[in-house]
């Protein structure tokens, strides 16, 4: 079976673990427990008739005092950046995170999840912010780990792109 490592990258508290929980276990918890190191889950999905085993590396969120260790990102076939749409700073840190990822694994298929879309009244991003993402070559999806909106789409889009980018399949 095709096996691909997908890294979840983002600032602390953006909902990376919740997105994986929703995608893999169809669960959501309001309780926040910060990840230490990496939690690894997996899910087999079907993409255009191919079974793909996604190895989901939920990497501890970057905080002010701690960088995301690049050692966790090594070997990634895809990256799912997660920003909290209600906290603008988590969005503003994406370019830095992307530079770090690119310097480690190059240009792998990537997607930005603008998470917590259920909190529409607290949404802190402008249309201009979102419009800037395609210009930077980043596909994005509004997601809510709480309701599940956009979560399946995000992982499936990424899996499809990973297969498309796989030179052994051309």
């Amino acid at each position, binding site marked *: 079976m095709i096996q691909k*490592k997908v890294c979840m990258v983002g600032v602390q508290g953006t909902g990376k673990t919740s997105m994986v929980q929703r995608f893999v276990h169809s*669960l959501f*918890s309001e309780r926040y427990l910060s990840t*230490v*190191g990496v*939690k690894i889950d997996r899910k087999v999905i079907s993409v255009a008739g191919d079974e793909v085993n996604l190895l989901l590396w939920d990497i501890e969120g970057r905080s002010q005092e701690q960088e995301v260790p690049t*050692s966790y990102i*090594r*070997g990634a076939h895809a990256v799912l950046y997660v920003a909290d749409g209600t906290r603008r700073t988590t969005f503003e840190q994406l370019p830095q995170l992307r530079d770090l990822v690119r310097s480690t694994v190059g240009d792998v298929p990537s997607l930005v999840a603008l998470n917590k879309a259920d909190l529409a009244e607290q949404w802190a991003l402008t249309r201009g912010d979102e419009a800037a993402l395609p210009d930077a070559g980043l596909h994005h999806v509004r997601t809510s780990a709480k309701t599940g909106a956009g979560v399946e789409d995000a992982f499936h889009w990424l899996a499809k792109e990973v297969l498309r980018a796989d030179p052994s399949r051309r």
Partner: protein
Amino acid sequence: MQTRADADVPALAPPRLDYYGASHVGKVRERNEDHFAIMALQHSARLLLTNLDDTGMVQRLSRPDAHVFMAADGVGGLAGGEEASRLAVGTIMEYLSEAASCYRGTDVGQEQEFMDRLSAGVERAHRRLIETYGAERGPATTLTMVTLVWPRAYVVHVGDSRGYVLRRGRLRQFTADQTMGDLYVNIGRGSEEQAEKLGLYNILSSAVGTDMAPVVGVVDLEPDDVLLVCTDGLTNHVPDARITELLAAAPDAESACRELVDAALAGGGRDNVTVIVARFAPASG
């Protein structure tokens, strides 16, 4: 008190490894239902004769590839819990000695295969417990296993024993307790206070030998980090702040283990207590 050794860990500028493990029955229980093991995994050629002058290579060949630190806390009353943790630790040791050739490198597939083997050891222990005692109401055990291929620590975790890393004075728990209390709060059924009042933190939601949902993870360690694997006989009696102080102040892993066990006993000692400490001091010379 058992097990003492010092060794060099291989790979990239490895630090000097100092480790120790200790287990105590406590002040109330008649039996110690905790078991622990520290193993070195070696999967290498043994040099018998050569005219090579690369002594470094000879050294590398004789070093262990990985170290495994595991603690298990049996549950099930009478002799069941004791047997469950003994069987689980023994089965995993047996499995790893047969099957765990060591992963080294950056290939994602090989690394995943290595992690799958570690998980398979836990799965085998789970199956053996069920075969021995049946699937319903048989004894069960927690299991926290950390396999170190410096600098990466691979974690397989079931139940409410714990793994921590002390880094630059900050103690961080890298395992999440699998109890009915945690599950109750996580799925939004009620508060921590309600879960406490209902006694749900005393019931495992996942255990080797019953319903098991192992969690797999990795933590990359740094020189000067201190690794702690322990059963809840420590964490129910000694707050994190005190654990931090004791780990930071101890001159070596053995002293740290003794201090932690003493603190658990001083805190009540109502349960068995097991601790494993590994320290990674920068290599000298």
